């Protein structure tokens, strides 16, 4: 019997009367890759914001590993092992790629209010950081300030940073958006490689990624769950085809 | 060898009190040196100037530096907080200090010391002259508008005491925040509805100017007499006679009083053509002249570096000059001059540029200032 790592019940969020997410139930199985897809504006990012607590839900409850996290702060949720990435790239621009990853690695160590200590403490993370950067194909940009990386490489860096926290549940918002297909392939491979012992919930428009990776798919439309199931069943669903996939998705 | 001296004018050169101190004070110092004949008598006097920028911190730092550079006398210093701060510095460095432009009567009171002379005016004198004379003239019911800081409170408290003592009555008082207030209409209508017949303005500079101007707009000058507790001729000039007419105020010097003052004015005018000296600036003239006389009398340049000695010498000698006539310096460092109550002329009465005042009353020096026994000056053994 599989167990659920994340469960949301009756999640809703309205913005000034406009319901972006409405009564969404979502259960993510442990160690699975779960995809959240849907048309633009369906409420996927909003859902992510709710789950990671960047937004407070209008109603509904969220539990992570069996504990209720509905009222926790975003930082606290992250500390519990549920870490997100952002749809619009979010890197620390003036810090090098290495420093970006190190910041995440250092967090995993604990406190960090040690303002009296030397910076050199951080060098202990260099090896692990190099590994992670290698994994996402950024070995050649270790000392490049993140702001100067091209768009696709920023995304890769973001994934490396997220991985550094060794999260049990990763929320990835369009991890491959804007990447060349070679990079997409690398990310897909990476996600496969890291999935051991990890659960991944991702939003993705690239159907080849979705079909290739996901164990289970939830389709959102207009803030509600439209369908749920594996890729076969979802892509065969009439409503999903009209709302999202479009008529010629077969050759996508 | 030439006898060299340094005099520093610490004043406001860039802010709100520039017109009552600043360049005109410097002009008056130069005039005093010229009238004394410093050069002919073999003195090489350097006049320095410093802008305290209305900050006690800057003022103290300036005074410390000036004294450390060998300045023998600091003079002027409008703004009581700075005036008092520098008094402490003068004491620490044991150098002479003549304050001609701070109002606080505490300069010769609790802060009093052997290095300091307080020239021209103080809050006690202003309140007794303006307050006392007006009550005598029938203005019994007073309403005060007070700048909410030490100077304003002192001026208000002392005037209110005089008014009461003379049989008058305080109908009310409002403290307005200093220096942020520009609109006084609210306080003015409180005054208007208080039933008082004299409006006492315990404020200075632009606040007083604004108060008088706005009182005029509300027609208060028609129903009440307005007493400016500290108004200088330069402020009147800024208001214009149209608005200032009828205002009652006290100064200890007015250029158009008598032949001697007019002679002084004629000499100093080329140095300050657009701004006639008020009492504080004339005090710089009078004070420096007397200082030079004291130095001359001591006839020992080494002793001049001993501020207490110079000031002691100044106290020993009576003063006499064109601006203030004959006067003296009391043991506590108080310069004893007469206080004159003036009424501002109407535009029609004014005969020429800066012809602004009519003399109403004179309070002789011995009544104008606080008796030494009441002051609490540590120099005075009681």
């Amino acid at each position, binding site marked *: 019997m599989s167990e659920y790592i994340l469960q949301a019940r009756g999640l809703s969020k309205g913005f000034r009367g406009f319901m972006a997410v409405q009564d969404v139930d979502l259960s993510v199985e442990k160690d699975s890759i779960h995809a959240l897809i849907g048309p633009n504006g369906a409420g996927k990012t909003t859902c992510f914001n709710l789950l990671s607590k960047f937004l407070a839900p209008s109603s509904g409850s969220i539990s992570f590993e069996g504990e209720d996290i509905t009222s926790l702060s975003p930082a606290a949720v992250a500390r519990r092992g549920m870490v997100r990435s952002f749809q619009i790239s979010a890197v620390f621009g003036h810090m090098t790629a290495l420093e970006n990853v190190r910041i995440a690695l250092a967090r995993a160590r604990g406190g960090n209010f040690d303002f009296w200590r030397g910076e050199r403490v951080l060098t202990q993370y260099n090896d692990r950081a190099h590994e992670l950067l290698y994994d996402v194909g950024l070995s050649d940009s270790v000392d490049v300030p993140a702001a100067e990386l091209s768009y696709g490489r920023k995304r890769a860096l973001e994934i490396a940073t997220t991985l550094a926290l060794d999260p049990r549940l990763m929320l990835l918002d369009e991890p491959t958006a804007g990447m060349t297909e070679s990079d997409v392939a690398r990310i897909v491979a990476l996600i496969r490689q890291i999935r051991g012992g990890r659960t991944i919930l991702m939003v993705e428009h690239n159907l080849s990624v979705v079909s290739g990776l996901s164990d289970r798919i939830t389709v959102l439309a207009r803030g509600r769950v439209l369908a749920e199931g594996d890729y076969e069943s979802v892509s065969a669903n009439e409503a999903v085809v009209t709302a999202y996939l479009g008529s010629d998705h077969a050759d996508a | 060898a030439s006898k060299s001296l340094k005099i520093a004018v610490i004043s406001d050169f860039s802010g709100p009190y520039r017109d009552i101190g600043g360049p005109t004070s410097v002009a008056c110092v130069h005039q005093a040196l010229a009238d004394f004949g410093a050069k002919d008598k073999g003195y090489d006097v350097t006049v320095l100037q410093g802008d305290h920028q209305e900050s006690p911190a800057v003022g103290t730092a300036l005074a410390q530096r000036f004294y450390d550079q060998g300045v023998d006398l600091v003079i002027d210093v409008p703004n009581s907080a700075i005036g008092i701060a520098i008094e402490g510095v003068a004491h620490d460095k044991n150098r002479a200090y003549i304050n001609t432009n701070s109002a606080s009567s505490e300069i010769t009171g609790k802060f009093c010391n052997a290095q300091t002379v307080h020239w021209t005016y103080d809050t006690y004198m202003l309140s007794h002259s303006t307050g006392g004379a007006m009550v005598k003239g029938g203005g019994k019911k007073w309403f005060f508008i007070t700048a*909410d800081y030490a100077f304003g409170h002192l001026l208000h408290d002392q005037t209110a005491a005089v008014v009461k003592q003379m049989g008058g009555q305080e109908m009310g008082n409002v403290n307005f925040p200093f220096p942020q207030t520009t609109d006084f209409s*609210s306080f003015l*209508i409180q005054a208007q509805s208080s039933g008082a017949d004299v409006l006492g303005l315990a404020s200075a500079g632009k606040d007083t100017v604004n108060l008088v101007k706005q009182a005029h707009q509300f027609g208060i000058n028609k129903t009440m007499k307005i007493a400016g507790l500290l108004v200088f001729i330069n402020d009147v000039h800024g208001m*214009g006679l149209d608005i200032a007419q009828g205002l009652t105020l006290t100064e200890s010097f007015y250029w158009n009083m008598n032949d001697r003052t007019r002679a002084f004015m004629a000499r100093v005018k080329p140095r300050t053509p657009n701004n006639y000296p008020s009492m504080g600036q004339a005090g710089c003239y009078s004070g420096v002249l007397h200082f030079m006389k004291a130095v001359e009398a001591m006839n020992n340049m080494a002793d001049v570096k001993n501020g207490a000695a110079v000031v002691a010498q100044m106290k020993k000698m009576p003063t006499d000059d064109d601006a203030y006539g004959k006067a003296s310096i009391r043991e506590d460092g108080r310069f004893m001059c007469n206080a004159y109550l003036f009424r501002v002329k109407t535009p029609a009465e004014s005969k020429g540029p800066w012809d602004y005042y009519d003399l109403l009353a004179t309070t002789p020096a011995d009544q104008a200032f606080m008796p030494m026994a009441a002051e609490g000056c540590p120099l005075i053994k009681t």
Partner: protein
Amino acid sequence: MMMILGKPAPLLFGQLLLGIINGSFYAMLSLGLAIIFGLLNVINFAHGALFMVGAFVTWGLLHYLGIGFWPALIVAPVMVGAFGLLIERTLIRFTYKLDILYGLLLTFGLALVLEGIFTNAFGSSGVSYDGPNILSGTLNLGFMYLPVYRAFVVFAAIVICFGVWFTIEKTSLGALLRAATENPALVQSFGVNVPRLISLTFAGGVALAGLAGVLAAPLYSVNPGMGTSLINTVFAVVVIGGMGSIGGAILTGFGLGIIQGFTEVFYPAASSVVVFAVMAVVLLARPAGLFGRVA
């Protein structure tokens, strides 16, 4: 006499009215500031100084050219606006690409320069200016005498505020201005001459300060420091209203005028700090001011 909270009722009515009058100055001044702030992202510290310049120009027009109040109401703001155009072209525009702090530093320096020059030229006690004759005199309102000129100021302020608010919030020119603040390069690539638009906007904001200066000249002592004393309050108004919110600045201007008016009766010593107390409370409760858009 009727008493409210221990104060005579007529006095309180009077204060309400005076609060509105003061509020109209706050509103008018903060308007220009909010435009320059909201649209150019420049914290114009020289706004108070330009207000002062407006008042002096009014005085100068009368004194040197014999131009009276009514023509000055048009001429002075145009002159101040032209001056604004000049400083925008020669100084301010270099700060757009920089952190907001640099604009603040530059305009602060500019304020010092203007103030210093005027102090040297006209002395610190300032000059006097009388309002137009037809607006002299007072109205008897029963509970107080209201100078006609002040009534005129309120009227003028309301007209000006509404006009500006409408232009910025409801016209396509306003939309263009708002867009140009966010991403000037992109708007420019749409074919809009953004640098010119920005210059004119700055000039417009400055002209508003000049206009307030004209209106203030007959009321207050015209002296070089007259702007500095107002500027802090006016900043507070803009912030409480919500940065860049034109409507917010207007409403807050009037509101704060009234609050200050009442403080002057009940606790006069606190009447200037009350603005900051209100600001602290508002910002603690609402992160982006009363009417600000949350970033």
